[in-house]
């Protein structure tokens, strides 16, 4: 029997980026908030400082900050004819399990997604006609606009200490920034990071070929900084331990050193760690939720925490899993294409080339997560005509480094033996001389890519695992080939001694190796309850006192990393909840 606790105003499931932002905003607004987090508390002082944090074995091989697949995981398959099998070891994506969530060990690349995503179907139909979009591509407009989100992007960029160079302030195109970005109200809070040789060489090559390179915006503070909430950042030290590590210099914008400690100072906020939410409970009408049930993972005790408002902030795929386990919203069925929960799961694609320059020293051990120069000429540049190439979406290309692991990073030219004397000689010879050019590409929603409950496998709580059915479709193959051709052409123009060329990802998707923790969709936002699970305020269409916050709300995935709009939408939802509590009910 679960112990029933006293009701609070708001219960937050998961305390990462979205949970942290909402905890701070709603306690500031005077609400009583409890956050329930499955992981433990860790701090820069004790855990992420030198020398403890520089441990590739602990953080990279043993996934110290990431979800424990012995307790809960997903089953995975490429299509409905296959039997899905559990992912027993993390690989392709690495969701966090600690106070701060994935926001502790992310890299910090922070983008503003534009109306090219939010109005994707309207824009493509208008320009290329209805038949340009394949019948099985279930893309739809998001029901939100860039202009509505702009102040919230700005707010998140200031909280997380984004270093970058604006390319468009109120319509004025500025040299050195991304000329394709949508107008921003003001400059980034911090100037760009110091460029590294690899990003400079890519910048020169791209510029010579007529493209528009710019420094990638990222949450790696280029200088010491105090954010508007008073959280203090040190300057990035280019230590090379960013992605998969907590930041030793407090230079990477992360919830555990910004919004969470501020919420913790409020007497109206309480954090319960080592607590795993297994279900969101509904009332007898099914139109409202009443709170959550969770298990203390240290002793197995079960609790019920009633709340007037429930916020799922457990990371995109975990939010979808909780919706399915709690029976909120109609599960998606790919055959009849009815139902909404599990629909439009998307991932990302990409291509990369490694270039070797004999005699150059790239010092790959010195970089920030965001040490990268990028071009958006094939991404949010609407002038790039997709018609001859026949794909929807785009890709961003970059040259630089991010977390070059002392043991794991071993670039050698293709054809080098994979072990023994020859390999040793090659790794010593080429280590300093290699750089990468890589592309990250969007994935459009497809009726056959979706999430549901697995019929066979269960987690440590005896609940069904979530099943992921996903593969790249022809649209992504075409884009991948275009990206690979472009990368190889640019690489050749740089005259490397030798190179491992880029190829499109056309083999079936697999859970190894690491690709990106950019899983999107499953409980998407929209304007119609028949085709979306959430309205534009991330409020459940089914239960109006439930908000589901994160990339689960994205109707498709863009080429960009997700946390710019994830953070902005968390602030946007906070404002909506402040209105909601005054007059509970559907917000649209």
């Amino acid at each position: 029997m679960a112990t029933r606790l006293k009701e609070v105003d708001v219960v937050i499931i998961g305390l990462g980026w979205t949970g942290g932002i909402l905890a701070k905003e709603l306690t500031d607004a005077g609400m009583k908030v409890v956050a329930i987090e499955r992981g433990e508390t860790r701090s820069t002082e004790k855990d992420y400082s030198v020398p403890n944090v520089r441990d590739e074995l602990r953080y990279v091989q043993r996934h110290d900050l990431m979800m424990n697949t012995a307790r809960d995981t997903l089953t995975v398959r490429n299509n409905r004819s296959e039997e899905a099998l559990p992912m027993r070891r993390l690989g392709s994506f690495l969701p966090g399990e600690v106070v701060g969530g994935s926001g502790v060990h992310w890299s910090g690349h922070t983008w503003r997604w534009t109306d090219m995503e939010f109005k994707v179907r309207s824009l493509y139909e208008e320009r290329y006609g209805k038949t340009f979009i394949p019948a099985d591509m279930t893309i739809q407009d998001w029901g939100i606009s860039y202009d509505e989100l702009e102040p919230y992007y700005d707010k998140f960029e200031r909280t997380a200490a984004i270093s970058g160079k604006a390319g468009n302030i109120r319509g004025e195109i500025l040299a050195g920034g991304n000329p394709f970005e949508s107008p921003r109200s003001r400059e980034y809070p911090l100037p760009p990071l110091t460029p590294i040789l690899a990003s400079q060489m890519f910048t020169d090559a791209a510029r010579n070929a007529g493209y528009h390179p710019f420094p990638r915006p990222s949450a790696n503070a280029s200088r010491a900084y105090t954010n508007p909430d008073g959280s203090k950042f040190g300057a990035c030290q280019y230590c090379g331990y960013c992605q998969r590590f907590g930041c030793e210099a407090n230079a990477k914008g992360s919830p555990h050193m910004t919004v969470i400690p501020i919420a913790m100072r409020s007497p109206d906020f309480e954090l319960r760690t080592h607590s795993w939410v297994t279900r969101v409970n509904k009332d007898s009408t099914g139109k409202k939720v009443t709170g959550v049930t969770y298990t203390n993972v240290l002793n197995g005790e079960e609790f019920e925490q009633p709340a007037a408002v429930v916020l799922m902030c457990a990371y995109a795929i975990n939010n979808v899993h909780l919706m399915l386990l709690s029976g909120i919203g109609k599960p998606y069925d790919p055959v009849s294409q009815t139902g909404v929960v599990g629909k439009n799961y998307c991932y990302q694609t990409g291509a990369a080339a490694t270039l070797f320059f004999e005699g150059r020293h790239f010092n790959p051990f010195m970089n920030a997560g965001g040490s990268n120069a990028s071009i958006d000429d094939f991404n949010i540049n609407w002038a790039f005509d997709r018609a001859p190439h026949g794909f929807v979406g785009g890709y961003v290309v970059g040259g630089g480094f991010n977390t070059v692991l002392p043991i794991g990073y071993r670039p050698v030219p293709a054809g080098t033996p994979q072990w023994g004397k020859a390999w040793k000689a090659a790794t010593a010879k080429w280590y300093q001389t290699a750089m990468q050019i890589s592309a990250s590409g969007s994935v459009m929603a497809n009726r056959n890519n979706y999430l549901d409950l697995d019929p066979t496998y269960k987690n440590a709580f005896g609940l069904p695992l979530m099943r992921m059915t996903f593969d790249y479709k022809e649209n992504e193959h075409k884009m991948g080939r275009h990206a690979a051709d472009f990368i190889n052409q640019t690489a050749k123009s740089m005259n490397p001694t030798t190179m491992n060329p880029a190829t499109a990802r056309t083999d079936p998707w697999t859970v190894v190796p690491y690709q990106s923790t950019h899983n999107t969709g499953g409980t998407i936002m929209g304007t119609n309850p028949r085709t979306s699970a959430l309205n534009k305020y991330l409020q459940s269409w089914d239960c109006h006192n439930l908000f589901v916050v994160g990339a689960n709300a994205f109707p498709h995935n863009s080429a960009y990393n997700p946390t710019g709009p994830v953070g902005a939408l968390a602030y946007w939802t906070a404002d909506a909840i402040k209105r909601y509590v005054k007059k509970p009910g559907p917000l649209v």
Partner: protein
Amino acid sequence: MGRSIVITLVCAIALVTAAAAGQDNEAAARGEKRFEECASCHSVAAGEHGVGPSLHGIIGRRAASIEDFRYSPAMRKSDITWTPETLNTFIADPQMLVPANRMAYAGLIDPAERADLIAYLQQATK
């Protein structure tokens, strides 16, 4: 006559001292802004440790002498007493003065900025 010279002299000295104090205050005020470089890890309040130890009472303190802070072996063996001079050398290039210390900070290159910061530390850490 003689007396008025003495009075003038005394006034002049007082003015010079006041001016020097004024300059120190200005430097310290600029240095307070520079301390943003350190504030993500250090506090000047007694007993308040962050990633780095509290800098309260740092002037005249022996390196690595705070009991409840976990210093690196390098810092413990450094045999330094913190004075404006040793702080100046340390902040310019921390790994040069104390190789293998665990402070993740590359250094403050500009000597004028270091002077401001040290002026601030002298006042704020008392």
